[in-house]
């Protein structure tokens, strides 16, 4: 019934790689993910070991991306930073996705007053600039990498809920839902067995389009000093530290930024392509 059911995984992968942009995205993303997973093997130095090279040393054969203020190897820190940045991005999307899907499905399914009040509240939440909402939540939770993920994740819930609600509304009036109801299926069963599988394409598209933003937003919080704290190797925090030495050691901000940019762009390329395949009407991000 859904686009995913029609496409076997192998064809989905083949079609995802179908355009040069998306193929490049997959390759870059794979490189970054492998670099992060196998950071202990690939990285030449301990990311937190200080004085492995002279302070703010320029890129060289021994230290490809140069060194930071404390004489730490920037290349090693970027590999390890990828672990945190990518994991936090995934966690963030998982939070928005889970809570947003639940809220969106339930208010659309219940309809009536629950839907009216729920939609109203979602609209009000969408009136907060996303970064301000995330900062407000950090103010409550306290400053840490995990809390930054939580804050960005929570601030993404209204976006997911809104889209999932509209998608659910299109389904609840359909015959298969009516017949499930007529056969005496419980509400939870209808939600789980009948609505959720049919919402999967929408949810996957939404998640893949949101992952890039999530990685960027959590890195932004770290850059602002509201996420991962020094000496943790995290791209946003590394950029924040590099800001002060831009004049003398631009590599301290060029390479972490490049890593972040490549990660977000490759995720966006793959996400655009996925959304094109799974939901041709949406036609990617507009």
């Amino acid at each position, binding site marked *: 019934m859904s686009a995913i059911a029609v496409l076997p995984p192998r064809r989905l992968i083949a079609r995802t790689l179908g355009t040069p*942009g998306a193929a490049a995205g997959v390759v870059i993303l794979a490189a970054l993910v492998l670099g992060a997973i196998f950071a202990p093997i690939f990285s030449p130095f301990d990311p937190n070991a200080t004085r492995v090279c002279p302070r703010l040393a320029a890129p060289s054969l021994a230290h490809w991306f140069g060194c930071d203020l404390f004489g730490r190897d920037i290349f090693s820190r970027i590999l390890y930073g990828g672990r945190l940045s990518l994991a936090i991005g995934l966690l963030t999307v998982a939070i928005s996705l889970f809570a947003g899907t639940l809220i969106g499905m339930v208010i659309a399914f219940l309809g009536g007053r629950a839907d009216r009040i729920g939609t*109203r*509240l979602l*609209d*009000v*939440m969408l*009136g*907060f*600039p996303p*970064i*301000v909402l995330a*900062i*407000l*939540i*950090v*103010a*409550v939770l*306290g*400053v840490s990498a995990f809390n930054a993920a939580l804050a960005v994740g929570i601030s993404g819930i209204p976006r997911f809920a809104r889209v999932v609600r509209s998608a659910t509304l299109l389904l609840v009036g359909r015959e298969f839902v009516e017949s499930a109801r007529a056969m005496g299926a419980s509400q939870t069963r209808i939600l789980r067995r009948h609505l959720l599988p049919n919402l999967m394409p929408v949810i996957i598209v939404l998640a893949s389009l949101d992952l*890039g933003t999530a990685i*960027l937003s959590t*890195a*932004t919080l770290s*850059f*602002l*000093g*509201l996420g991962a704290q020094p000496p943790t190797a995290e791209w*946003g925090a590394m*950029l924040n530290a*590099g*800001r002060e030495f*831009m*004049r003398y050691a*631009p590599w301290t*901000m*060029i390479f972490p*930024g490049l890593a*972040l*940019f490549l990660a*977000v*762009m490759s995720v*966006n*390329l793959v996400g*655009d392509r996925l959304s094109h395949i799974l939901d041709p009407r949406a036609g990617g*991000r*507009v």
Partner: protein
Amino acid sequence: MTMPWFLRRVIEIVPTLFLTWTIVFGVLQLIPGDPVMLALGGTPASDEVIDNERKRLGLDQPLHIQYFDFLRKMAVGDLGNSYQTKQPVGQMIAARVRPSLELALGGLLVGIVLGVVLGLGAGLRPHGWVDTATMSTALIGVSMPSFWIGMLLIYVFGLMLEWVPILGEGIDALILPSITVGLFLAGGLARLIRSAIIETMSQDYIRTARAKGLPNFRIVAKHAMRNAIIPPITLLGVQFAFLIGGAVVTERVFARPGLGALLIDAVLTKDIPLVQGLVVYTTSAYILINLALELLYGVLDPRIRSRRA
């Protein structure tokens, strides 16, 4: 009796404002720790001093009284006093509005010029090389962290070439921050204008205009642009409304003393009244600007007016 539609819209924002303020109040109640201790800034104090401070801040009242007190004060624009500086929050915000507003306007200008030129170029010849280049640039634009763009601009144009100052208050110090904000806006705007133009150019009235032998420039400027303008204006309105509250990241990169920078400081120092005041100001400005925009649509597009009436 029917009310004019614009009056109805104006009245409708009251519950929205009220709900927004309620959420801000509710969320800030969750901040761990005793607000009195935060207000005293960690200085050791006797029980008497603490009690007096609690009374002065109205924190000895039950929560629902505090809540109604909060709503009443917000409605008349009394945002309370900062814990850190003891100054009225309203004054602190007012002092920071200008840098943020300048940056919002500068960014908007750069964003509109770039977005319109690229979007039009791409939309008038879809799938041509201008289109491909524009859409690739737009993708790069939305994927680049704006703080990184800002730092690269500082490095290249401020430090290496020394064309523009990177700090200061003059108009030339506004150039790089405006480009940083503008590049971000331009990406989304170009995509939107492109799809709006492609859709509009395939309409019957454009074919009619062509058949009448009107010059191409006139068709685009008078017929297509006018009908493709609403979605881009909506996007710009939303972005501008967000920027009014301070481009948090860009202000930080360029050390501009705007509202976004104030918010970060307020969060880091746990200055609850200041956080509260800033979020109330930002979200209220957002709601009011959206209202103004909606009223503007009625003027720009008579079809919307008649649909609502």
